[in-house]
C-alpha cells in the first residue's frame, strides 16, 4: 500500500516523562486516519512528534519517502504538513485575514485558495476583517482548519476538531473535513468515537503511549469488544 506517512515505533520524552513508548502509524495516501484513545494516551503528542514540535528520541518518521528525524519543525511543516492544534491557537493580535495570510508559504497562496476556503466555510467571508479573538469557538475551529488549507499541504494533522462544539457545528465541520480530504490526506485525533467513525477510513488506537491496534474503521465498528476495551464509551 502507498503510505504518505509512516511512523515507526517512536519514543518521545517530554522532560522526564516517557510519553510515547512505541507508536506506529501508517497513513494511506488520500485517506482519513483517526488516532483514537483515552485522554492522555498520547495522541496529541504523536501529532507533535510527527511535526517535530516534540521530537521523538527513538524511532523513525517518514513523510512521502523522506525521513523527518532530526529536521527542524518548520522545515518539516514546509514540506507540506498542516497542523490544526487542539485549542486552535488562533492568533489574538491578528485579524482573521492575517491569521490566514500568515500561513502562506509562497506569495499569493491565500489568493489562490480564497474561493475554496470560502466555499468550505462561508462564515469566514463575513468575518474576514475582524480580530481573531472575536470569533466563537466554532468559528475559531473553522479558521484553524482554513489556515491549514492556505498552503498546498499534502497532509493535515487535525487535533480534536469536535471538542467543545455544538452538534450542528460538528456536522458542518465533518462535511468540511470530508471535502478537504479529497485534496489531501488527513490524520485526525478524535475523542468522540461517533465523529471519528463516520469520518475515518482507517484507525490507530493509542493506549498508554503505545499503539495497540489499527485497521479499517469498518471493521472496528463491528468490534464492540475492542471499542469497549480501549475507548470505554459506546
Amino acid at each position, binding site marked *: 500500500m502507498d503510505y504518505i506517512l509512516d511512523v515507526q515505533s517512536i519514543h518521545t520524552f517530554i522532560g*522526564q516523562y516517557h510519553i510515547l513508548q512505541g507508536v506506529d502509524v501508517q497513513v494511506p495516501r488520500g485517506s482519513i486516519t483517526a488516532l483514537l484513545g483515552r*485522554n492522555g494516551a498520547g495522541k496529541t503528542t504523536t501529532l507533535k512528534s510527527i511535526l517535530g514540535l516534540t521530537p521523538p528520541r527513538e524511532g523513525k518518521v517518514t513523510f512521502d519517502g523522506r525521513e523527518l528525524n532530526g529536521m527542524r519543525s518548520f522545515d518539516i511543516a514546509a514540506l507540506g504538513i498542516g497542523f490544526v492544534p487542539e485549542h486552535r491557537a488562533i492568533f489574538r493580535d491578528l485579524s482573521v485575514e492575517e491569521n490566514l495570510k500568515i500561513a502562506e508559504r509562497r506569495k499569493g497562496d491565500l489568493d489562490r485558495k480564497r474561493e475554496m476556503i470560502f466555499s468550505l466555510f462561508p462564515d469566514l467571508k463575513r468575518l474576514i476583517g475582524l480580530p481573531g479573538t472575536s470569533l466563537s469557538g466554532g468559528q475559531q475551529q473553522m479558521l484553524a482548519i482554513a489556515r491549514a488549507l492556505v498552503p498546498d499541504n499534502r497532509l493535515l494533522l487535525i487535533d480534536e476538531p469536535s471538542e467543545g462544539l455544538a452538534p450542528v457545528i460538528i456536522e458542518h465541520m465533518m462535511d468540511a473535513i470530508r471535502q478537504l480530504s479529497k485534496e489531501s490526506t488527513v490524520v485526525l485525533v478524535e475523542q*468522540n468515537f*461517533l465523529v471519528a467513525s463516520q469520518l475515518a477510513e482507517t484507525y490507530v488506537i493509542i493506549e498508554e503511549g503505545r499503539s495497540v491496534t489499527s485497521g479499517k474503521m469498518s471493521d472496528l465498528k463491528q468490534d464492540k469488544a475492542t471499542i469497549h476495551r480501549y475507548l470505554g464509551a459506546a
Partner: protein
Amino acid sequence: MESETILEAVNLRKQFGALVAVEDVSLKVRKNSLHAIIGPNGAGKTTFFNLLSGNIEPTSGQVIFKGRDITHQPVHRTIHFGIGRSFQITNIFPNLTVFENIRLAAQALGADNFKFWQPASAFKKYESRTWEVIEKVGLKDRALTPAKTLPHGDQRKLELGMILAPDPEVLLLDEPTAGMASEQVPELIALIQEIQKAGNKTVMLVEHNMNVVMSVSDAITVMHQGKVLAEGTPAEITANKEVQTAYLGGLYELNV
C-alpha cells in the same frame, strides 16, 4: 432515605469573555455519597470543579458547603473547611520526594507551620499520618523517590494521597484515572470506593469514562455544553436516551 446535603451549587455561572463555560448549574451533593459528573470533553466539568474549590471565581451564583456560603473564599481556605481537590493534570511538587509531598499536605492544617526553629522531622504526628496515607495509596516502596520520577499511574496515586492526607470531608477528584493504564483503573477506583465507604467521606468525581463510574456512583450528573443535561442514579442515567446521544458526541441521529 434522603440524607443531608453537604455541598451545593446554586446557579453557578462562569463566563470567559463571550464563552459561557458553566451556565447556571445547580447541584446538590448528599453527604457520604459518591457523586460523579460525566460529560464529553469541553462540557465544563473541570471549570465547574474549579468553581467549587475556589480556584476561580464564578461570574454569578453561590457555592454552599454545610450551609455556609464559601463562594468567595480564597482557594487556600477551602481545604480548611474540609474540601480536598485533585487535578486532572498531575499537580505535584516534582522535585520533592513522595514522602515530602504528602507530608506537606498532612502538615497544612496543623498549627505548626510557623515553628521554624524545629526541623520538620520533629513533628511526629504528621510523619505518622504521612506514612499512614502512603501505605493506603500503596506507595510505600516509593516513599523516598522524587515525585517526578514516578510512573504516571503512581503519580495519580500520589495526587490522591495528597488530598487524603489532611482528611477532608469532601473529596473533589478530577479525572483521577486520566492517562492510567486500563488495567490499573479498577484498582484505583476500588481504592477510591474504599476510602469513601470506610472513611464516611463524600466523593465527587469528574470522569470521562462512563463505564468506570456506572458501577461505583450513588448519583450521576451529566453535563453538556456547560449545562446539566440529566441527573440521577446510574440506572436512570443509563436508561436516558438523551444522555446516550449527548455523551456520544451530541449528534442527534447517527447510525453506527
